[in-house]
């Protein structure tokens, strides 16, 4: 279990992480989502005691990270996959990490085997592709067989087979009762991997709930009067947002009610269809106000 309470990090004038409070439960994969620059990595670095919080606290299984006696046996982390010495072999990279926490030497061979790098173990890590580096990073995280795992963008650079491999791996680790926190900026990937989602934007918590709660039913309406009708729907208590040309995505009102309202107002409808918003759309909507480096619209 990872517990954050009022966690805040300020870099000069910039609030990188702003009063974050949430809990990551064991036995589930928790997706940690946010646009680039939302503060995901900074948050994870604070969990690991690498960055000092400006205020607030974070504990892992009830203890501050720096108080863990042999941290790699408690928490496994993948932050930057390519943070390895280019001339040092993958095996030696894992060996020194194992030695630092008095882990048995055989764990090195076990995790190399687990991530499928046994044949490349003697090669300098600088010769690895991004996908292989990600696998090495995951091997390092699993070295101490820890009950808590933190992975920052682990699917970056993996091919489709690698993505599926990591998805299965993470789900298996959670099924064993471990706490798994995985950050991503890809909602579609998290839709397939995570049980729960924590969404942040500009360092602030935007949403935290089970995956199902993020997808909600809505109604797609296509009409020539979409601007006026949209306003009318809002007055009636629905929420709308523009879709493609002449389309409205309506939530908070059923399709029959939208149809009745259109008839009462004399509005011509070309299309009226119930639909489920995808997780991707929900994410875009949630974070549209908090995109750090968004393209001009």
């Amino acid at each position: 279990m990872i517990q954050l309470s009022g966690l805040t990090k300020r870099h000069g004038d910039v609030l990188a992480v702003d009063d974050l409070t949430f809990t990551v439960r064991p036995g589930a994969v928790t997706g940690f989502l946010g646009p680039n620059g939302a503060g995901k990595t900074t948050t994870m670095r604070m969990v690991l005691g690498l960055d000092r919080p400006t205020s607030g606290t974070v504990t892992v299984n009830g203890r501050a990270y720096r108080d863990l006696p042999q941290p790699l046996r408690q928490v496994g982390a993948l932050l930057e996959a390519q943070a390895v010495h280019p001339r040092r072999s993958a095996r030696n990279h894992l060996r020194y990490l194992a030695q630092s926490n008095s882990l048995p030497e055989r764990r090195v061979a076990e995790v190399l085997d687990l991530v499928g790098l046994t044949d490349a173990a003697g090669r300098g890590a600088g010769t690895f592709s991004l996908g292989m580096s990600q696998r090495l990073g995951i091997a390092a995280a699993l070295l101490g067989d820890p009950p808590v795992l933190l992975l920052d963008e682990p699917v970056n650079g993996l091919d489709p087979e690698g993505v599926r491999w990591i998805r299965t791996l993470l789900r298996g680790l959670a099924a064993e009762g471990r706490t798994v926190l995985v950050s991503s900026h890809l909602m579609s990937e998290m839709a397939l991997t995570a049980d729960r989602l924590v969404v942040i934007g500009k360092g602030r918590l935007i949403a935290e709930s089970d995956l199902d709660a993020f997808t909600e039913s809505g109604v797609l309406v296509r009409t020539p009067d979409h601007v006026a009708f949209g306003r009318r729907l809002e007055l009636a208590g629905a929420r709308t947002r523009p879709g493609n040309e002449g389309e409205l995505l309506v939530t908070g009102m059923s399709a029959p009610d939208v149809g009745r309202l259109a008839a009462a107002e004399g509005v011509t409808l070309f299309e009226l269809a119930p639909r489920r918003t995808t997780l991707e759309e929900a994410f875009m909507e949630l974070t549209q106000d908090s995109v750090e480096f968004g393209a001009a619209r």
Partner: protein
Amino acid sequence: MKAADAMRATGTMKAAGALRAEWTKFASIRATVVLSGAAVAVSGLLAWLFGSAATRDYTEATAAERLRFDPMDPAMRGVFIVQLLVAGLGALIASSEYGSGTIAASVAAVGRRRLVAAKAGMTVLSALPVSVAAIWLMFGVSMATMASHGVPTLGAGDPAALITLLVGPLVLTSLALVGLSLGLLARGTAAAVNISTALLLLPVFATVSPGWLRNVIGVYWPNTAAFRALSADPDLPRLLGLGILAGFTAVLLGVAFARFESRDV
């Protein structure tokens, strides 16, 4: 009592693990291993060069000049170059982790305090044997070069040679710890090595400096003070000269540790 013993035991185990990890890091990259060997090889080469030059000078010298001849002077001249390599070795033990980014994983694995302690331990463990080899080889090669041409030399047991052979390696090891501190402070190999080289070579400008500055960098500067303390006729009390370097090293290491403790990795 038992609990305290157990805690001490696991504390020792953790320190040993951190040190073993540092050894694996040290031994598994080429730069540190090559630099260690280079420091020793350069020592031998410079000793032969300066020994040969001294032989030439001695043969052409007048009787009065021959009386003032100190064979330890050409024998140890190479230390001005070798000190740069040994300090660089210390710097690399910290800075190679910044260049590659492994510093985050290392801090997460053992914590800041134990990491710095293990790196200081690793610096001593690598720099001390290298320094012993470098200084003894320097002494042996230069004395042999000079003796083969009939120039008077000193035996290893001579008091004037003995202090250099025994304390000299400690002086170089201390400079390796200075390098380590600079590596931690500068967080990069290039910056750390540049700063340490400037710091250690500054005394070269002593002769062209105004009086007071000449004293500061020519007599009291940490590395000069310690090297001068090893000469047969030191211009500072020996303990003061060595104490200046020891104090400087301790303060710099303390500052580096405090900065490392307080800032983000």
